[in-house]
């Protein structure tokens, strides 16, 4: 089955760390993940989960819309973004808000930003963005900041609270160094340390950024040089969820109290690490494309460390 793309990286740093999620059975449009004390359970298919109307706060993650992309891997990236938004509009329970983990556009053109906004706004949800490297390609690097930079620091990092959960949006796509990976930089790390100071360790924290904060595959640049320093600051928090995009496929792992998750793209899939000569767009049969694009919905249950992530492809 095409969806067996979960990461099986073992954590080698100690036996006390909990092991990685196993791939779960995929059927229909997706699988509901729930984690209790680091142990994953499958609660069933998306349809039955939706029918059960999850209690608590639900929010959505979409990623890598690449509006403007028109190459063979998906000649109509705007169209598949619209399909994703339609999917969201059809959800039985309206999510509280949405986060977008970057690469809104393909080439940072004003028209691409405008088109993306025209479609995404149809969900009628608050959207919290972080930029991907494709959103900073305009000459003056101003289009993203003009649209989404209000109230953010530096290149666009910020935090907010919702339903007792602390959300932190980080930017790891600027000042990249030759030969290196994603980069947060000293200034942002200092801000993060300050932002987390005084937060109760029982506060659930959700950190989101474009490039994975954990090292997925350095050969393709899939990781963040100083991501470990950010994760160090999150040690001791009882529930930490790290949401990323960039790699256009679902990967998940659990390490202690930290759940790492990457979302599918709404535009085109990319190959699993090392399975192709490069991480470039993967051309799949037209009939298969929509099973490899999608959205993620995340459910927090208050006073309960349970967290559920549902990845829903655009089509089964």
């Amino acid at each position, binding site marked *: 089955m095409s969806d067996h793309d979960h990461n099986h990286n073992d954590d080698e740093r100690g036996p006390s760390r909990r092991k990685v999620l196993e791939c779960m059975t995929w059927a229909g449009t997706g699988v509901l993940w729930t984690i209790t004390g680091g142990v994953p359970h499958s609660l069933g298919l998306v349809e039955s989960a939706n029918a059960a109307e999850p209690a608590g706060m639900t929010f959505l993650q979409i990623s890598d819309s690449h509006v403007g992309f028109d190459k063979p891997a998906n000649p109509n990236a705007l169209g598949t973004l619209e399909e994703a938004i339609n999917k969201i509009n059809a959800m039985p329970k309206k999510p509280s808000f949405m986060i977008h983990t970057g690469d809104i556009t393909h080439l940072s053109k004003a028209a691409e930003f405008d088109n993306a906004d025209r479609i995404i706004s149809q969900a009628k949800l608050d959207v919290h963005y972080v930029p991907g490297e494709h959103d900073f390609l305009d000459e003056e690097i101003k289009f993203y900041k003009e649209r989404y930079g209000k109230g953010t620091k530096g290149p666009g990092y910020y935090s907010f609270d919702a339903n007792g959960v602390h959300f932190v949006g980080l930017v790891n796509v600027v000042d990249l160094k030759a*030969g290196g990976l994603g980069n947060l930089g000293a200034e942002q790390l200092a801000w993060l340390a300050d932002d987390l100071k005084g937060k109760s360790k029982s506060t659930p924290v959700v950190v989101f950024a474009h490039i994975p904060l954990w090292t997925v595959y350095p050969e393709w640049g899939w990781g963040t040089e100083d991501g470990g320093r950010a994760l160090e600051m999150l040690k001791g928090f009882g529930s930490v969820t790290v949401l990323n995009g960039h790699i256009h496929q679902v990967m998940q792992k659990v390490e202690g109290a930290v759940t790492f998750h990457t979302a599918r793209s709404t535009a085109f899939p990319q190959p699993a690490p090392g399975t192709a000569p490069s991480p*470039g767009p993967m051309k799949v049969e037209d009939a298969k494309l929509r099973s490899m694009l999608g959205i993620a919905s995340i459910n927090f249950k208050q006073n309960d460390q349970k967290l559920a992530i549902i990845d829903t492809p655009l089509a089964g």
Partner: protein
Amino acid sequence: MTETALRSRYSRRLAFGLVMAAAMLLQLGSARAHAQELKVTIDNFTFSPVEVKVKVGDTVTWTNHDDIPHTVVSAGKFRSKTMDTDNTFSFTFTSAGDYKYFCSLHPHMTGMIKVE
């Protein structure tokens, strides 16, 4: 025609000839350096050839064949605009040295131009 006029015409011809010779020499000079155009292609997130040796005055042109945009950046030396599919960027090297460069979007992509 007076002698003076003849001499003057002669010297003008000589001057013209000298200018022509100098111009030809200059041309010859630049031809001798035979400034070359070298090509680096980007396929599958890789610069190829990854290292190029050139002479001062040579021009290197990068062409992006990927479906994903790339850049070519050598800190403090040159910086391309974002190159979409089939876009190119050219740079003429006017001084010797090693120019390490990378793609600022995908920094694991690196290359080297050695200029002698």
